[in-house]
């Protein structure tokens, strides 16, 4: 079974009486353990695509199956649940909670999954260890470097054992060295069997992926699996 199956997806916004087709009839299948980069200039529908795959948004029309679940007909609560169980987000700006320690930040998805405290700490510690931050668990984000913060964010994305990790310009706010480290982590996660979807406009970053999709005006114009 396909992991993700988007079929004839449209997302149409009405901006000032004008119809904007952010996604204009997209078909896409993603399998387990793929390493995919979604590329495109701004306004190409890249972000909308990411929101769609990440179940933050629902299509105006079309069918979206995520591991057999019909995402296109889900309500807010069901979407929240599928995000919690199956998707790990990594954002460009890290989006950690500033007042919480690294460990607590990583724990939050587990709180929403209603997992008990001891189990939470165990899982969160393991995730932080996987990204090499076992000695920074009790530091707050402002006591960590940019690269370290992004690693906390990756740990947070990983902690629920999601089906996919969805990273939106994960190195956009980092220097090239830290960016390199972060990409190393993604490569490593992929080698361990994780499915990773990168959204980026940088070719260097996209190069890490095994498959590249280019979007333009809401349409897939290139799907390069041949790497």
């Amino acid at each position: 079974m396909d992991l993700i199956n988007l079929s004839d997806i449209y997302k149409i916004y009405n901006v000032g009486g004008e119809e904007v087709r952010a996604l204009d009839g997209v078909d896409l299948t993603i399998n387990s353990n793929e390493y995919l980069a979604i590329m495109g200039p701004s306004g190409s529908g890249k972000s909308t695509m990411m929101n769609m795959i990440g179940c933050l948004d629902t299509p105006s029309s079309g069918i979206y199956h995520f591991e057999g679940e019909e995402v296109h007909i889900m309500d807010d609560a069901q979407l929240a649940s599928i995000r919690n169980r199956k998707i790990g987000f990594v954002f460009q700006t890290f989006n950690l909670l500033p007042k919480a320690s690294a460990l607590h930040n990583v724990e939050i998805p587990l709180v929403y999954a209603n997992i008990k405290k001891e189990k939470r700490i165990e899982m969160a510690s393991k995730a932080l260890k996987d990204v090499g931050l076992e000695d920074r668990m009790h530091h707050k984000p402002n006591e960590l470097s940019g690269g370290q913060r992004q690693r906390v964010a990756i740990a947070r994305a990983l902690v629920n054992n999601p089906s996919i990790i969805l990273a939106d310009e994960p190195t956009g706010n980092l220097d090239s060295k830290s960016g390199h480290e972060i990409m190393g982590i993604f490569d490593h996660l992929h080698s361990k069997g994780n499915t990773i979807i990168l959204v980026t406009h940088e070719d260097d970053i996209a190069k890490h992926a095994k498959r590249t999709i280019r979007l333009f005006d809401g349409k897939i114009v290139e799907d390069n699996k041949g790497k």
Partner: protein
Amino acid sequence: MVSLFFENLKISLGAVFANKTRSILTALGIVIGVLSVTLMGTLISGLDRSFESSMSWLGKDILYISRYEWFSDMDWWEVRNRPRMRPDYVDKIRQRSKYALAVCPVMQRGASLSYEDKETRTEIFGTNEDYMETISTDIDEGRFFTESEDRAGSRVTVIGYGIKEAFFGDKNPIGKYIKIDNVRFRVIGVLEKQGKFLGLFSVDKQAVLPLGAFKRIFSKRGWMRLSVKVPEDKISEGLDEISGIMRIIRKLKPSEKNDFAINQTKAFETQYNRLKIAIGGTGFFITLLSLVVGGIGIMNIMFVTVKERTREIGVRKAIGATNGMILSQFLMEAVTICLFAGLVGLLFAYVSSIFINKIFPSTLPIGLSIFSVMMSMVVGVVSGFIPAYKASKLDPIDSLRYE
């Protein structure tokens, strides 16, 4: 859901303590609200207490017959023209009434009491042997005077506990002679310690003499009232009967109005309850006002908080928080501020009540304290709901992009 609750609690506490000044200012309205409602309760409890002890001195089952009503808007001249009470009414009432258990005349005036070199001014009462039946006080030492002593006009007196302490200290006063306005009286008994009546005058500073002696020595035509004790379960029947008897004594025609008044402690209660409603009403109004103002403050600050933390809301939603979870988080934050405010208000109220208690015996009512804290939490829920609802309905994509 337990883990979510603790997570929310942690977030709330974090938010409240991260913005200390803001939280304190926001909470002030609720603090004042809780303070005013609990202090009002304290005040009423104190009034209740002193009222009750005063009322027990008067006695619920006693009818007080005199020229004037205790609480009335009658014109003074009308009251003044009513005939006086007379001592012979006592026997007339005793003969006719089947409810009267005890009937006694009471005359009262100020007098100077002295023993050796000690002197004090106080109230003296002239009455008969039934007097003890009509007051709730008992004899502490010695005895009360008898009917024959009354009829003979014997110069004997029963003194209040305060007089005994002032004149005799620990010594036995029985059989000693004291002077009342320079006339020698033999002390035959001491009344139990009582306390103050409505906090106004001390009941313990009194001397009771037989009416015969009182009239002969001090006042032939003084002001008099009658106290009639009736069975506790037959008060209204007793009232009707005594009223009828008084009308016969006064030879009133059916068309004529009563030219006397029969008072009960109930009149005090009615008057007191009016006072209580006035105090309670004022307190309630102040409380309501400060809670509304406080609630608006909370709502306002919660809107600001939601705005400030839009991005956080987006992140939380992205990693799996449902609308309900976000709603409960912000609702809890509002309730936490209000709960703190309530507890602070209660703490202030408690400290104040300790001081108040020193001047005016009263206690902070526990039920009302719990109620006021609950009420502040309700304010939190009510005023936090709209901001929290707004937070819960935020679109995760827009929130994540919010700068």
